[in-house]
């Protein structure tokens, strides 16, 4: 196969929030197998666009099933290769110094909260889930004037720390990105479809077996520990 003609390496497109965790796992994988792993860390939607436009990757790890589904529909992924790796939770955060307290989702309507940042619902997976949750609580319409859409997690959080929004809805894992925020409230998980990080083998991959092996490795206990260390909930 072509696996032997080229130096053995694996190209993995992964959601940028996985950078640190995958970095460690990749190093361990390379140490064990001798296979070098190259990651391309970007927003999941960007990765989706790149893959659609002909980028070749062996493995795609998205922060949301949406992108994977879209690629599957276009026939770009290897059938039956999808594995759900991780799950995450939505939390409501505020600036560390804020004196707001939120006990129920309805509290989001209180006047002390004049602006709420979420990821762009069409672009950032966290935003999609946030929209789902707000819709679930029938707040989506009423809160519209208060909503600010961040182009990525980082922007969403930065709006909080800069003091320009009062609260933001982000992944639980994102709360480790800055110490200047605190978690006010964890959104009930029944309000949104489970947040899943799926991994999939790409059809264009020339090392599909290796790719599967890598995904299997991601599902191993060692990997699970690393993921957990970085705040993810490991799906086994």
């Amino acid at each position, binding site marked *: 196969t072509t696996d032997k003609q080229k130096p053995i390496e694996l190209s993995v497109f992964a959601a940028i929030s996985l950078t640190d965790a995958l970095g460690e796992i990749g190093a361990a994988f390379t140490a064990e197998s001798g296979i070098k792993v190259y990651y391309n860390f970007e927003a999941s*939607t*960007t990765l*989706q*666009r790149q893959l*659609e436009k002909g980028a070749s990757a062996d493995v795609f790890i998205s922060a949301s099933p949406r992108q994977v589904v879209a690629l599957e529909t276009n026939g770009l992924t290897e059938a039956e290769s999808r594995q759900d790796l991780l799950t995450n939770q939505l939390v409501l955060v505020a*600036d560390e110094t804020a004196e707001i307290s939120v006990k129920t989702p309805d509290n989001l309507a209180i006047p002390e909260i004049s602006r709420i940042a979420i990821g*762009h619902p*069409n*672009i950032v997976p966290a935003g999609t889930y946030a929209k789902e949750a707000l819709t679930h609580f029938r707040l989506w319409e009423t809160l519209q004037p208060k909503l*600010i*859409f*961040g*182009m990525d997690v*980082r*922007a969403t959080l*930065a*709006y909080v*720390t*800069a*003091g*320009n929004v009062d609260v933001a809805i982000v992944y639980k894992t994102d709360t480790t990105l800055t110490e200047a925020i605190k978690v006010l409230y964890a959104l009930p998980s029944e309000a949104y479809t489970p947040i899943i990080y799926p991994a999939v083998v790409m059809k264009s991959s020339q090392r599909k077996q290796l790719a599967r092996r890598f995904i299997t490795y991601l599902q191993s206990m060692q990997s699970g520990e690393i993921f957990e260390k970085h705040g993810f909930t490991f799906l086994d």
Partner: protein
Amino acid sequence: MRITPTEVAALSLSIKVAFLSLVIMLPPGLLAGWLLAKRTFPGKALLNTFVMWPLVLPPIVSGYLLLILLGRHGFIGGLIYRVFGIEIVFTPLAVVIAVSVISFPLLVRGIVTGMESVPVELENAARTLGASPVKVFWTITFPLAYRGIIGGTILGFSKSLGEFGATIMVAGNIPGKTQTMALAIFSAVHLGEDASVYRLVFIATVVAFIALWLTERFTLR
């Protein structure tokens, strides 16, 4: 080709911002350009680096730093909020600031190149005719640097249309309010709406073409 109202708003915001930021940046741009082109002083390379900074950093990072500075908790943003009670972030003003900061180096470089090419002999001649350094600047250095200034303006204007990274950070991407053409195109790309992308790219290109064509006509002697 149909254009939606939000796209019209984006177009008009982009054009307004491009002009406004040029107007705002010209005075400090001329000052910095003059210092870099005509003076020698210790720390000149530092000033040069400072001016080039927004170009050297990824725009998203510049935007991030701007957000930190202009946010309600930020040094400048906080001050303004306490004194005037107004907020900069997420407003069209933020767009103007972001665009200005990012296109500043382009404008300044043009000005520097233009002013460097003004012969010091002509400036000296003006001074023998009684002109103060300030008058020399406005009547000799500035007009004779016009090629460079126009060059810088063209770059700055074009960049204004395309600026995205910093804008999105400090201004958000609020359709009808802070969404510029660049942000609209960006959104379309991200949503995979290729037809929309092409349409918007075409519009932006036409705007640039008109601006460049007018500049050319206007500066032809």
